């Protein structure tokens, strides 16, 4: 009998505000420990939280982008727990009246479209970070992250496989990036997801105990963790040990490649939620929602369609471009400056992505100027440099940010297109390779390739390949 997997996702996203949720401290990632703190975010006695308007606006924007109902009245609550990462010993969050409820997004897995419902989106503050010292009896705390604004997006349990769940997170990530709500960097923790997984027999109505898994920092880890958990549960049920699947939270240990139990329902916290008395009810009117709606830029779905219609890119190309917002933007800007859409897509998805990967850079950190790339493409088109040289020039542009022309001039890379000049090289090569000439005439056409290679070597790749081939063919004919 077949099994069915049921997955719901809880996603925490850091909002792209300049300052924290309740004070004016900056939210920049990677600053020296505790350099971005003040009495308010450190929860010093007597200080009070004041809600950053920008947080409310971004949460509304997220709600609109994910087709949610926006609640014109919502409130903040306190979630009480003792842990040193929380300097007030409570997290200010939203409990029973979140800012957005009931949204949905469409995902596509193996060509099939599916709607995933969103239960709610609520606003909350992030906690600090504990740094456990190896072989030291103490731990350190970095409070830079405390008070960084978050939204938590809770889906319904609508996903039926780890692939669907990953696709849901990818789609959501790309919507949030496009709408400018978050930079969604999983590796920096600005997008964190927890998955709730249970399995049941196909046809069974009631749900079995669900397990929450945490601590997956990349899509790769996410799918691995979910597949592993799915397998663990299936095995337990299959071997009559279904009672061992209990409602619990498990942490994904990427090193060991398995999930490890963190806490069960019995030792779950009683968070003693109650309305935050320091922050009045959040009220706003329709006008604000409408003005925010107008500010939402083109979202991925619409962009995909446009890329297909306008630039005639393949589905695969579109997927990669749209999947990386800054990259897609770079692409469009380059096309606007004057690049041929299809050709520049090849460059961006090929050489550029490869270099970004090697240098461990993000799509937002592309060091090449759009106009320089356009210039480079023109130089190829006019035959001033060969495609091979262009690759070298491109790499140099990437590393030194220089203009292509100055690189070419500096290194003397201009294509040799003068017929006389080329002829000299060609004759020299023919003279030095009589065997190849003989082979060619004997019917071994591949000897032509060898000779071309020798010419390129002699000209350090600067020979115009088209022209070289023409002259070479002619000369060989003549020698016959």
């Amino acid at each position, binding site marked *: 009998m077949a099994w069915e997997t049921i997955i719901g996702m809880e996603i925490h996203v850091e909002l792209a505000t300049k300052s924290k949720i309740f004070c004016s401290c900056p939210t920049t990632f990677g600053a020296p420990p505790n350099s971005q703190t003040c009495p308010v975010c*450190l929860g010093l*006695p*007597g200080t*009070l939280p004041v809600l950053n308007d920008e947080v409310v606006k971004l949460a509304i924007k997220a709600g609109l982008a994910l087709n949610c109902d926006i609640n014109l009245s919502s409130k903040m609550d306190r979630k*009480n727990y003792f842990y040193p990462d929380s300097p007030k*010993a409570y997290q200010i969050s939203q409990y029973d009246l979140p800012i957005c409820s009931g949204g949905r997004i469409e995902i596509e897995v193996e060509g099939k479209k599916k709607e995933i419902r969103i239960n709610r989106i609520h606003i909350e503050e992030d906690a600090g970070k504990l740094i456990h010292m190896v072989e030291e009896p103490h731990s350190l*705390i970095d409070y830079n992250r405390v008070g960084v604004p978050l939204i938590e997006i809770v889906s319904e349990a609508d996903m039926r496989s780890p692939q669907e769940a990953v696709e849901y997170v990818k789609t959501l990530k790309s919507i949030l990036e496009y709408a400018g709500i978050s930079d969604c960097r999983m590796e920096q923790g600005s997008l964190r997801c927890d998955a709730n997984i249970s399995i049941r027999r196909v046809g069974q109505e009631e749900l079995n105990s669900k397990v929450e898994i945490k601590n997956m920092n990349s899509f790769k880890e996410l799918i691995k963790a979910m597949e592993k958990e799915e397998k663990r549960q299936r095995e337990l049920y299959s071997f009559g040990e279904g009672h061992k699947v209990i409602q619990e939270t498990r942490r994904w240990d990427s090193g060991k490649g398995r999930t490890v139990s963190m806490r069960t329902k019995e030792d779950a916290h009683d968070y003693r939620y109650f309305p935050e*008395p320091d922050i009045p009810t959040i009220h706003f009117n329709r006008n604000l929602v409408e003005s925010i709606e107008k500010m939402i830029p083109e979202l991925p779905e619409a962009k995909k369609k446009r890329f297909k219609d306008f630039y005639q890119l393949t589905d695969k190309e579109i997927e990669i471009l749209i999947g990386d917002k800054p990259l897609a933007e770079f692409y469009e800007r380059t096309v606007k400056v004057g690049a041929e859409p299809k050709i520049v897509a090849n460059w961006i998805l090929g050489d550029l992505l490869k270099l970004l990967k090697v240098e461990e850079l993000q799509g937002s950190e592309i060091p090449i100027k759009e106009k320089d790339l356009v210039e480079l493409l023109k130089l190829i088109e006019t035959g001033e440099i060969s495609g091979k040289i262009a690759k070298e020039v491109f790499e140099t542009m990437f590393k030194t940010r220089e203009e292509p022309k100055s690189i070419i001039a500096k290194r003397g890379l201009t294509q040799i297109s003068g017929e006389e000049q080329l002829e000299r090289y060609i004759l020299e090569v023919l003279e030095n390779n009589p065997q190849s000439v003989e082979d060619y005439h004997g019917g071994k056409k591949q000897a032509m390739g060898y000779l071309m290679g020798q010419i390129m070597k002699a000209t350090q790749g600067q020979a115009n390949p088209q022209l070289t081939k023409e002259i070479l063919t002619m000369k060989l004919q003549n020698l016959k």
Partner: protein
Amino acid sequence: MELRTMSIDEIVTGIKNRKIKAQELIETIYKKIDEVDPILQGYLTLCKEEALKQAKQIDEKAMKGEKLGKLAGVPVAIKDNICTDGVLTTCGSKMLEDFIPPYDATVVKKLKEEGAIIIGKTNMDEFAMGSSNENSAFKATKNPWDIKRVPGGSSGGSAAVVAAGMAPLSLGSDTGGSIRQPAAFCGVVGLKPTYGLVSRFGLIAFASSLDQIGPIATNVKDCALSLEVLQGHDPMDATSVREEVKGNYLEEIEKGIEGFRIGVPIDLLKGGLNEEISKAIEGSIENLKELGAIVEEITLPIVDEGLSAYYIISSAEASSNLARFDGIRYGYRPKQFESVEDLMERSRTEAFGEEVKRRIMLGTYALSSGYYDAYYNKAQKIRDKIQKQYEALFNDYDLIVTPTTPTLPFLQGEKINDPMEMYLGDIFTISANLAKIPALSMPCGFSKEGLPIGLQIIGGAFKEDKILRAAYKLEQKLQVTKNVSVGKEGI
């Protein structure tokens, strides 16, 4: 120079006219403190050096004829749960025995901007929980009228130092009567403003939805003047009034109360109230009538349930507000501990007093899953009901008058082992906090033994002007403090 009889207005005018030197005034205050405070125990920390420096600057400004603030040279005592930049702020607790905030509370900033001089921090019940100052971790302040008796609490220190002439003005905080009850016990005027009129930024929270800072002074006008300085929107406190308030209380204060409709809960004056208090209140009511007010009998919103609701809500909020004191970042920390949990547990076990622990337990219980609806939620519903009932009452009445306390100042040790008895003392004061409305306590007479009796005037939200007008006229008419010398056991 006898400070007890000198008003803030007299001080400020004197300094402006260079009849009084701020430095001399401050010296005189500290001399008085040296003399009286060893017995009274009102202050926890003194800031003499800084105060004299400030005074010198004020004198220099006065000499040069520069513009001086509304409170230029006025010595002010601050309750020790209100943060003062660079000055110890302990909340009367071992937990914060070494806590020096790196910021001023907004009220302190405002006082300083108007030229007031902070002379010291006053004793209080630990974290403002208590009605006798016996819950302070450091000392028990005595009542200046009879040193065997308590000064009330939790702002007992702030009330006692004003009553004993050790400061003409002090700040207290009031969560369920903590300004008004000690003001009544010490024979001074104390005002709890409308929730939100005065910023709470820098007030170490007890119960955030009830706490409010207010002035304690020897007379009504001084309260009015200081409220003008303290009030207003604060971008650092989201619960402070949104719009700019411009209550010109002093301008209004002389207007009288001709035609004011005043409600009095007569039934409360009869059932179980101390007879001397009852008589003093009745006498004041007659005076209010003579001043032109129309006095009518009313029934106060649910009183007993209000008391329960108050203790549930305030304790619930306190359990959360006090959770941050875990020994990790600041405050008390034991020398030895096994783990981070052990560190938190020991810090809290060793540094919190009995009453604070009692309220944390009570509040934690009231918020626990399974009990939330029966306690916290129900208490909130009662609070809403009380709020609505007061709103309705203030549609018909300008003011409501009650006693501030059901008893006279009690003896030290008399109630400390009976928390219920202690809590019942708040019966008249808590509803103003629950309903977020302003209320003032003023002396309206003395018992045969010479103990002060407090009268409470409650107004509608942001109707401090009406309260102050009535209080001022009544004060003028009663002249209580002028005719009474301090009781035989007093200072």
